[in-house]
């Protein structure tokens, strides 16, 4: 057991920072298993309940430690306290994703299993050292017919561990949030569904091709070419995009003009998908974008797609129009459709939630009100933060409200806002506008 810190050394530094807490939990849980099996050696009749308790306690502890800052962001992102805080899910799933890098022989084994050939036989050149870690696997550079390729390989067994982790974390999440298990279930299932989709590389290739074709009309957005014949359940082959990640790009002190160009590309990319395709790349993590030397936005990961059904899209995005939001009666109707106001709420409750949600939606809809919006201004983000903080202190938000679609749609849009804020970009927000109806 004293050897465990060893593993920590092998995890890439940037990821350590991202989820140090959870790596620690992972180690502890690993330790719990070792403890369990060594005890079991001497007492074969021992059951697993002690092990589960040990694990659960460690997970709970690390979640509690995150309570402070992470929860604040979580509240903001999840609109109200009742939705499962995204960072919990994110970080928790990352704890498993932070598995040590795949060994060379495992890569060879994975290729032989799915293609019957070793990587050297498939590509002209294949770099056995990974160039960076993808969310649930790692990326290798390869060459074929003079083209540089990115080959993404998935760690075996990721899907299983996602499901079991979520099961494990569930009782603690609802205890922590003061929610009832049944209410939480809806959100948990939504998260599990998305996470499991991410492990299906065949699906990802299909969607990547679909989305990159549909989005090819956008200015300054580029996509790698995908090669389905060189992809499988655990492997994706695509073109290698040259470029810088957002942080590196910002470190070069780009001009305002260039920042606006990238920001505009991001805005168009997301709003085109939301309002025209009704399905959106729901993972606006800075690591999923590259800024090419030509000043274009490269999108490299379509693992997480959120589809928006009409019965969510129409009431929600119609609220972004001031014409509707000023009409109290219709607004309350929309809130009811979105399950933000329940049928058995008292008139006083209706009034309360109407005011709270109206404030929230008007904050969210600010960028849509005029034709341009400056995401560089801190004022807007301060009010968002303050509002999130205020909500978290209200006991009225200690119960499930809002349909499950909010989890990913909020994560997408607030994630987008955050990236645009980092870019300090001023963008035209009237390029792809929400389709609204004014009455129901």
């Amino acid at each position, binding site marked *: 057991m004293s050897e465990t810190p*060893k593993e920590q050394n092998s995890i890439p530094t940037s990821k350590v920072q991202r989820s140090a807490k959870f790596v620690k939990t992972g180690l502890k849980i690993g330790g719990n298993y070792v403890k369990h099996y060594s005890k079991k050696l001497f007492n074969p009749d021992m059951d697993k309940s002690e092990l589960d308790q040990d694990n659960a306690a460690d997970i709970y502890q690390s979640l509690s430690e995150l309570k402070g800052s992470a929860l604040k962001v979580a509240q903001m992102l999840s609109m109200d306290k009742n939705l499962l805080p995204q960072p919990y899910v994110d970080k928790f799933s990352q704890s498993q994703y932070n598995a040590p890098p795949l060994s*060379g022989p495992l890569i060879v084994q994975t290729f032989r299993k799915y293609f019957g050939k070793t990587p050297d036989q498939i590509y002209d050149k294949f770099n056995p050292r990974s160039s960076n870690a993808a969310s649930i696997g790692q990326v290798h550079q390869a060459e074929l017919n003079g083209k540089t390729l990115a080959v993404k390989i998935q760690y075996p067994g990721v899907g*299983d561990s996602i499901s079991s982790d979520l099961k494990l974390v569930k009782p603690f999440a609802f205890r922590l949030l003061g929610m009832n298990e049944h209410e939480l279930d809806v959100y948990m299932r939504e998260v599990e569904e998305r996470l499991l989709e991410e492990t299906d590389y065949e699906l990802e290739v299909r969607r990547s091709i679909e989305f990159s074709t549909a989005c090819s009309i956008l200015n300054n957005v580029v996509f790698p070419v995908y090669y389905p014949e060189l992809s499988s359940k655990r492997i994706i082959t695509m073109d290698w995009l040259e470029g810088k990640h957002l942080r590196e790009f910002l470190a070069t002190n780009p001009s305002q003009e260039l920042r606006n160009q990238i920001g505009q590309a991001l805005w168009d990319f997301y709003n085109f998908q939301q309002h025209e395709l009704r399905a959106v790349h729901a993972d606006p993590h800075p690591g999923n974008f590259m800024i090419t030397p030509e000043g274009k936005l490269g999108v490299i990961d379509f693992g997480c797609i959120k589809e928006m059904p009409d019965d969510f899209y129409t009431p929600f995005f119609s609220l972004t129009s001031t014409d509707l939001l000023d009409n109290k009666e219709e607004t309350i109707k929309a809130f009811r459709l979105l399950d933000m106001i329940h049928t058995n709420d008292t008139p006083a409750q209706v009034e309360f939630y109407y005011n709270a949600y109206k404030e929230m939606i008007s904050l969210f809809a600010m960028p849509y009100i005029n034709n341009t919006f400056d995401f560089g201004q801190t004022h807007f983000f301060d009010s968002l933060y303050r509002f999130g903080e205020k909500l978290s202190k209200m006991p009225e938000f200690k119960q499930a409200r809002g349909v499950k679609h909010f989890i990913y749609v909020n994560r997408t849009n607030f994630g987008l806002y955050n990236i645009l804020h980092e870019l300090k970009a001023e963008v035209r927000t009237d390029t792809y506008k929400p389709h609204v109806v004014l009455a129901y």
Partner: protein
Amino acid sequence: MATIESIQNAYIDHVLTEGTQPKSVYIFAKNIETTEEEFYRYFGSFAGVEQSIWADFARKTLAEIETQEVWAQYTSREKALSFFYAFFELLKGRRSFAVYSLNSHGRTLGTPVVLEQLKTVFENFADSILKQGLESGELSDRKFFAKRYKDGLWMQFGFVLNFWIKDNSAGFEKTDEAIEKGINVTFDLFERTPIDNLIDYGKFLYNNSGFKEKAGF
């Protein structure tokens, strides 16, 4: 004329169709149209046949991985991983026999009889890669323990084998996971660890901090 291989194949066929060993060498030899004498020229008993089949799995695995281009560049950790992956990939084609053979000989402490020959092949292989690792400094040369490293690998092999027998995941993906994690942990223990540094530091302090004098040495 019977050969080692034809006897092995006939034997596998028999146990898999009948679910048990042949009643006697005499009947078995008669069924495959050869003589008892011929059988005993190659094998001492049915257990001997099974042992040789298992040992051949390991030999075939080695022959295959050692011809791979990357083999020479692999560290000893990677060589061990490569052996495990290739071995279980090969065993997939003979899974029924493997399950039969291990289950029919019951669980005992230590190495099952049928794996004895394979153990020799495995240990020779383990010895050679561990030696390479010790020479290159990849592994930590600890007094007394370094000689036991190969036992650690053999235990790991036994563990993965049992795991694979019980594994019912698609494509035996769980076994891949067990190999990746298990071998890595084993090699992490063989490598220089904080404990080595701690002992080293302790030695240094003992020799240089005047501790010896004070202790009256």
